[in-house]
């Protein structure tokens, strides 16, 4: 059974999500969340959403202090993108957490609950505070 010592799990979360700012090892702060239209995997990035109103490259996100092998983000306020184009975003499937190194590194991936998510023209895709949970145990 896969398992990890809780204290080390917290260290991994802190490093790979740049919790609390920059780290000497791990992810380069800030990290960003990207939306994808295909499901990412552990070896292959998803296809990033390309649409009017979405910021290519993603949006900076911060995560709370890791505790119990888990953390959540965004902290502070929601992250959102509004479909300002004339056609629907037909399928938001996944998300990825990338850092902002000179050559950005993809650290985490997953899919949204209830995906694929359709965002009609004029509507907003929002990630509320703590809506993304990251667990390492």
């Amino acid at each position, binding site marked *: *059974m*896969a*398992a*990890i010592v809780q204290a080390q*799990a917290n260290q*991994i979360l802190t490093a790979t999500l740049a919790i609390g700012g920059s780290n000497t090892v791990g992810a380069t702060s800030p990290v960003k969340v990207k939306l994808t239209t295909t*499901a990412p995997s*552990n070896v292959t990035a998803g296809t990033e959403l390309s649409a009017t109103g979405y910021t290519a490259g993603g949006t900076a996100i911060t995560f709370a202090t890791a505790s119990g092998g888990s953390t959540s983000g965004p902290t502070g306020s929601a992250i*959102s993108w509004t479909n300002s184009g004339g056609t629907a975003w037909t399928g*938001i499937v996944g*998300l990825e*957490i990338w850092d902002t190194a000179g050559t950005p590194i993809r650290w*985490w*991936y*997953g*899919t*949204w*609950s*209830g*995906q694929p*998510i359709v*965002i*009609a023209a*004029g*509507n*907003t*895709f*929002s*990630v*509320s505070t703590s*809506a*993304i*949970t*990251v*667990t*390492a*145990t």
Partner: protein
Amino acid sequence: MSEQPEGDQPVTTDNGDGTQTVHATAVLQAAAATGNEEENG
């Protein structure tokens, strides 16, 4: 790291101006404790 259950739908709210906001959630799990991993060796 795991995918989400398909039945867990995001919440949609009306903005009062004819538009809506979809509130998405996700769980990224590094390791699933299934107890079925293959042993190396």
